[in-house]
């Protein structure tokens, strides 16, 4: 053990600089899911197949809400979306004082009365 200890002592510590420097996140990381509402057709498949019920698709108002602390970044929604409206970024979701809910609004064509 002594040799290891001495080696550690003279070499630079292994500690990352985070949060003072950017986090070292591998490119393959499944971080967070983002919706591209232009492509989305509000079919609701992502809501149906999400294993943790994190997604809500409101077909009426055209809004998709994701409860961030429910999403386990499994990527199932991406797989099932036929329109490729969902993307995954390596960047992870940030902590919050409350339970963060992200919502995406689709431009709805106004239905004339």
């Amino acid at each position, binding site marked *: 053990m002594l040799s290891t200890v001495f080696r550690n002592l003279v070499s630079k510590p292994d500690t990352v600089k985070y949060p003072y420097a950017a986090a070292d996140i591998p490119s*393959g990381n*499944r971080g967070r899911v983002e919706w591209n509402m232009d492509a989305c057709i509000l079919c609701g498949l992502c809501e149906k197949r999400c*294993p943790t019920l994190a997604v809500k698709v409101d077909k009426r108002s055209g809004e998709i809400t994701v409860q961030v602390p429910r999403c386990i970044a499994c990527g199932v929604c991406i*797989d099932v979306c036929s329109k490729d409206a969902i993307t995954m970024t390596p960047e992870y979701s940030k902590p919050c004082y409350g339970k963060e809910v992200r919502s995406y609004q689709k431009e709805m064509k106004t239905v004339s009365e």
Partner: protein
Amino acid sequence: MTKTTLIPVGPQHPVFLEPLNISLKLKEETVVGAEINYGFNHRGLEKAMAADFRRTIYMCERICGICSFYHSTAYCQSMESLFKVEVPERARFIRLVMMECQRLTSHTLALGHTAEAMGYESLFMQLFREREALMRLVNDISGNRVHYSINTIGGVRRDIPMEKQKEMLSVLDGLETRFAKLAKVFKDDRTIKERTIGKGVLTKEMAKKYCVVGPVARASGIPEDIRTSYCRDLDFQPIVRDEGDSYARSMVRVDETFQSIQLIRKALTMLPEGPLEVPVKGNPSGEAFIRLEAPRGEVIYYVKAKGTVDLERIKVKTPAFVNVAALSAMVPGCEMPDIPVITVSVDPCICCTER
């Protein structure tokens, strides 16, 4: 008159990561009675898993964050046998590689945990430092540090491309050399030997009686390892020791880490080309029974499906379940300071025991 001390160890105790409660009866510092209480971690997963079979992949993965991949693999294998599909060879090898990676992270965790329980903080730190390199590697390959989530019924969802294979090999090389040093410490350090040799002995007979599995069984002289059949093409021999004490258990894990590194190397060189998954259609029906060698021993999945989206019943038999029970045979008569070491050397996991 000697009053005994009655002391709850857990559910929250610095040496346990998980909510396990051992109620100890001590005479001075000698254990005269131990009672293991379960149930803190019981979430009722088996019931919840008997639902949409596609969702269950993600749920069974979350039975446990240490050998999550084994759980999803075992589950997917059982579903594949229900669907009567054969996964592509490439997928089988990728699963194998990932499983061995997870065994590496799990064993380094277990060893580090043992070191921490003995108060050998710097060894713990070094082991976790090496583990961190592994974690980054699996993160890059699978997309998550803990729950790889790359299994799917019929194959895997992510490939290990050539450049990642290379990176993997180089990481493993570095790891092997550095880990060899730490392994030597574990083998030879006088204080470690003093704390582990002869402590918490589980004889071969007792081991058989308690049906222990995995490294605990192998450290007690039972050459039981399911990988002998699963890794058939990789020329695998289980590591066995006879002493049955905490030292032997740790040494089995130390040796198995090197073995896993070898297995990964071999698997990567043999990685066949081909598709990653075969499609499955429809709903499963019938029964399936699958065994897999997880880091702590064999995990058994029994799945019964009734032809609908929802499964009828899932039963998981996990290694820690039997190993933890054997603890009650190991601790009486030992000293309080040995309790954490012995407990951790068995590597108890409550989350899959209780699900």
